[in-house]
């Protein structure tokens, strides 16, 4: 389990990184915290010939409150968010971090890396869709900002072009009552099913039941109606389209969805 050989590049600026990406093409990959990428490289499931280390690009590791919005730099680590004082408006971000792997993963793994990696059960991906985040990316043609729902396109695939870099994730509105909960057999594992709700938006987002973090409008409508929380869970369970897979049947995923959405709503109501 040793990675294949590569050439190491250290980017000093966003434009430098983007330039390298454009120049080196498909053989190049960005490395941020490396907590997904290095594991895949050790299994030789990823074998970039060039690795562009963006970790030292200045200015990408800040969390800034701007009016209603919170702008989280791509290089901000999970642990930095976990320990940041984001106030009641964005506490869901800090709280959700305890579900991301374990402390030594969180000290290096980054927000930008999680979003770019686009695991459909990753907490950051759920949170981005839950809070209508905009993913700010920069490429040779300059910056653009992509709504989270459009950003995630399929299994580990996103709207990011190969020569683009995520520079920031912008959370446009406070979500003081938003919550996230999930279920796995073992602490720190990726969830079998994860559920996030924001009663104020309203939003119901699921991880583990589709190829991307999934918004469930049918459940959002029930949530907006302010009826019993169990009905929101029921609506979410009824709305999803899941198949039997080794380790978890469709029926079970639906049941977990029902339970977790209900519990997330219960938690939200206490706020």
């Amino acid at each position, binding site marked *: 389990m*040793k990675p294949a050989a590569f050439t190491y590049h250290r980017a000093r600026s966003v434009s430098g990184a983007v330039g390298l990406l454009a120049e080196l093409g498909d053989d190049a990959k960005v490395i941020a915290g490396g*907590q997904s990428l290095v594991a895949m490289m*050790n299994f030789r499931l990823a074998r970039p010939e060039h690795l562009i*280390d963006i970790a030292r690009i200045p200015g990408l590791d800040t969390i800034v409150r701007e009016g209603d919005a919170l702008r989280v730099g791509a290089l901000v680590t999970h642990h930095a968010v976990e320990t940041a004082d984001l106030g009641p408006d964005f506490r869901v971000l800090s709280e959700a971090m305890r579900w991301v792997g374990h402390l030594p993963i969180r*000290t*290096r793994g980054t927000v930008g890396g999680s979003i770019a990696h686009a695991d459909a059960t990753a907490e950051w991906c759920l949170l981005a869709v839950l809070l209508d985040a905009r993913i700010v990316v920069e490429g040779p043609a300059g910056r653009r900002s992509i709504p989270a729902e459009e950003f995630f396109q399929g299994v580990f695939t996103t709207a990011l072009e190969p020569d683009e870099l995520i520079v920031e994730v912008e959370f446009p509105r406070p979500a003081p009552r938003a919550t996230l909960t999930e279920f796995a057999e073992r*602490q*720190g594992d990726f969830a079998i099913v994860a559920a996030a709700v924001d009663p104020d938006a309203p939003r119901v987002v699921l991880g583990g039941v589709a190829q991307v973090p999934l918004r469930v409008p049918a459940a959002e409508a029930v949530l907006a109606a302010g009826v019993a929380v169990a009905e929101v869970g029921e609506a979410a369970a009824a709305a999803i389209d899941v198949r039997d897979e080794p380790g978890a049947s469709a029926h079970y995923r639906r049941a977990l969805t029902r339970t977790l959405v209900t519990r997330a709503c219960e938690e939200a109501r206490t706020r």
Partner: protein
Amino acid sequence: MSEIQLVELTVNGERHDLAIEPRRTLVDVLRHDIGLTGTHVGCEHGICGACTVLVDGAPVRACLVFAAQVEDADIRTVESLAEPDGTLSDLQREFSAHHGLQCGFCTPGFLMLAEGFLAERPDATKEEIREVVASNLCRCTGYQTIVEAVDACAARRRSG
């Protein structure tokens, strides 16, 4: 074999100039290029935690970091804990007193995990300690005595 890169690492306060392939992970460089074999390898995919070291004070999986990424960071390994004359640190002594190690293979990882965590959270409760101890795997102890050792160390440090 690919090209060789010059990498400068600071480990336990000591500087090392290395000419290595960039694909070498930090844990392999610590163990095999620098000769600090106290840090162990148990999985090379981030789950077991046997390779946990401190990078700028924070516990990190040394198998998921390339040495080239952590130039001019302050890296600390298990070898930094005891005094040069071999006197064990308070944390190490608690591990021994509570029988928090059997084969000892996981131990350096747990020590560095706890060292980094307690530095940031000296007031951690036992439940919080348990949650952090859950970051690493131990196949021998059943964890209880590791949790107890870390908790006892934290308590002792708090009481001065």
